[in-house]
């Protein structure tokens, strides 16, 4: 009905009235027709009815419906304007008719509806905006996150803004997810490498643990050897101490012997000095004898002279005097030789004294040296003691080390077992990481469907700090 009557206001009005009247006539005719007429004459009846209606219409138009029509027209106008979307129009509601009531009701309705119903223009505009928005954002569904909704001033502007914000967030998230997935992918690769290294490292470690066990056992053996050697060395040091003690005693005896030698030498020196003094006295005595010989010689000469003066009587006396002189001469000669001998003896005595003093000095020096040797031997004794203690300590420590190294060997065996377990675990980890790699590849495939701006800052914004650190 609407499509037929909206062409013109007149047609509408007419239509309305016609419908109204037609309805009335129709209803009357239907009631007549139904009573006794065949269906073929329906159109004639209809036509008659139409004419009747027309006449009625004219009459009613002029007579009855004129004012009503006017009111209806006004109402219609108002309704049309409403129908056109103009909700500002109002029905003149001055008539106290049914139309007036309708008009007032329409007015009331309009008053109540206007705030609720936008105008059509607005609706269209909104629809267009929404359509535009939809068109703009439809790519997002396909994963295109490069789109950007135009922010307009109308209602969809806010939506577009929110959408843009949301897309921005989404883009950021997706970018981060992509980056993260790439990084995870890389990390998985690295992890795979690391795990492979770990696995081979674990194998190596297990092998090395075995080697280390062997080495530690060897070390334990050598430490044991060291301990034994230290014990032997301690015994040797003890022997050295004993020897040094013997040496000290020997040096002490040597010093005592030197002292005795010195005393004897000094005693001998005294005796030789006395001998020298005696030879001095002998020299004096020899001198005295020489003097006596000299005097005797003089006396003998005098006697000879006197005998000569006595002439024949002194002849025998002269012979005696001659003999006495010879004796005196020989005595003088002998005392000269004795004097020389005494002098030589004194010289030699002086030399012997000097030699004795040298010997005494030498003996004192030797005694001092022997003393020093004694001191040194005492020090050696102390050092040997200390050495023996130290070597004992070394022996103890080495034994402790041997025990410790046995413990270490045991620990190494345990560690070897642990390492084997670790190697198995590492292989499992490698398998898990391979699965993780597949998952990450899937994730990559999924997130790659999202299209991002070529240089999206969000794509690189997310970087896991630990992965950065790992590089």
């Amino acid at each position, binding site marked *: 009905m609407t499509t037929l009557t909206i062409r013109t206001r007149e047609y509408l009005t007419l239509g309305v009235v016609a419908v109204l009247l037609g309805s009335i006539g129709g209803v009357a005719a239907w009631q007549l027709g139904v009573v006794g007429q065949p269906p073929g004459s329906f159109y004639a009846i209809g036509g008659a009815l139409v004419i009747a209606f027309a006449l009625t219409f004219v009459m009613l138009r002029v007579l009855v419906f004129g004012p009503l029509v006017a009111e209806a027209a006004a109402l219609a106008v108002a309704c049309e304007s409403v129908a056109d979307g103009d909700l500002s129009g109002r029905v003149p509601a001055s008539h106290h008719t049914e139309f007036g009531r309708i008009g007032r009701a329409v007015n009331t309705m309009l008053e109540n509806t206007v705030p609720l119903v936008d105008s059509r223009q607005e609706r269209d505009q909104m629809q267009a905006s929404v359509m535009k928005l939809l068109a703009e954002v439809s790519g997002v569904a396909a994963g295109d996150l490069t789109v950007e909704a135009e922010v307009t001033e109308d209602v969809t502007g806010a939506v577009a803004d929110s959408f843009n914000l949301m897309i921005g967030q989404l883009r950021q998230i997706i970018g981060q997810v992509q980056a993260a997935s790439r990084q995870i992918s890389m990390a998985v690769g690295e992890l795979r490498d690391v795990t492979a290294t770990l696995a081979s490292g674990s194998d190596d470690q297990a092998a090395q643990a075995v080697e280390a066990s062997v080495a530690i056992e060897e070390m334990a053996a050598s430490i044991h050897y060291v301990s034994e050697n230290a014990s032997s060395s301690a015994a040797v040091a003890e022997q050295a101490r004993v020897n040094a003690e013997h040496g000290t005693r020997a040096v002490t005896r040597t010093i005592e012997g030197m002292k005795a030698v010195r005393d004897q030498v000094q005693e001998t020196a005294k005796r030789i000095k006395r001998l020298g003094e005696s030879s001095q006295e002998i020299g004096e005595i020899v001198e005295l004898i020489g003097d006596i010989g000299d005097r005797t010689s003089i006396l003998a000469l005098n006697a000879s002279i006197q005998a000569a003066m006595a002439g024949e009587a002194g002849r025998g006396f002269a012979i005696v005097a*001659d003999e006495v002189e010879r004796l005196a001469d020989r005595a003088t000669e002998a005392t000269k030789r004795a004097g020389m001998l005494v002098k030589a003896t004194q010289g030699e005595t002086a030399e012997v004294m000097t030699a004795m003093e040298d010997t005494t000095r030498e003996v004192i020096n030797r005694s001092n040296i022997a003393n020093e040797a004694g001191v040194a031997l005492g020090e050696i004794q102390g050092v040997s003691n200390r050495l023996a203690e130290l070597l004992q300590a070394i022996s103890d420590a080495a034994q402790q080390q041997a025990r410790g190294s046995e413990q270490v060997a045991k620990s190494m065996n345990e560690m070897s077992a642990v390492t084997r377990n670790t190697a198995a675990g590492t292989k499992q980890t490698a398998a898990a990481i391979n699965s993780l790699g597949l998952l990450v590849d899937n994730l990559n495939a999924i997130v790659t469907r999202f299209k991002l701006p070529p240089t999206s800052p969000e794509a690189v914004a997310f970087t896991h700090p630990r992965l950065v650190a790992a590089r």
Partner: protein
Amino acid sequence: MTEQPLAALTLRDAIASVDSRIDAPAVSQGAPVEATSAGTAGRFILLSVASTHYAIPEAFVTELERVPRVTTVPRVPAWLCGVANLRGDIVSVIDLRAYLGHPPHAPSGARLLVVRLLDEPFTTGLIVDAVDRIVTLQGDDVKAPASPFEGALAPFVSGVCTIGGTNSDRLVAVLDVDRLLRSPDIRQFDDPSKDPS
């Protein structure tokens, strides 16, 4: 004089030697005083002064001493040492070394030889370096000096002889003591009051 080892020399040996010589026939025991005065033969005392050997006839020698303490006298030549007291007798002492012009250095074996004149009571002491022994010379042992002696004692040398020493022969000048003691040098300080002539 034969040398014997010192150890072999005992008093008994000496006495035996003396006895044998006393019992033996008399050997030439020096000329009488008359012969001695001639100065050519007899017993002579051998001495040395400044490495020169001299012989003095024994008759002129009264005694022999060590050099005594000499009391110097003033205003006399250096060779006149002074006077000495010999057992109460005062004798003048002449240093022959100094007289010969040598420095007055007396060796340890220096002797004082008291000499006299035979015909008058005049004695004086002569200091010599050493007195060796008494020798007996025959008349033909002493010869006239081949060349004149030099020095202060040259005028008093009456002859020379050769004496066999221990090592080698030595030339000995025989001094004429009589002439020496009568020389003006010696007699110039003689106290005339003491002279009995």
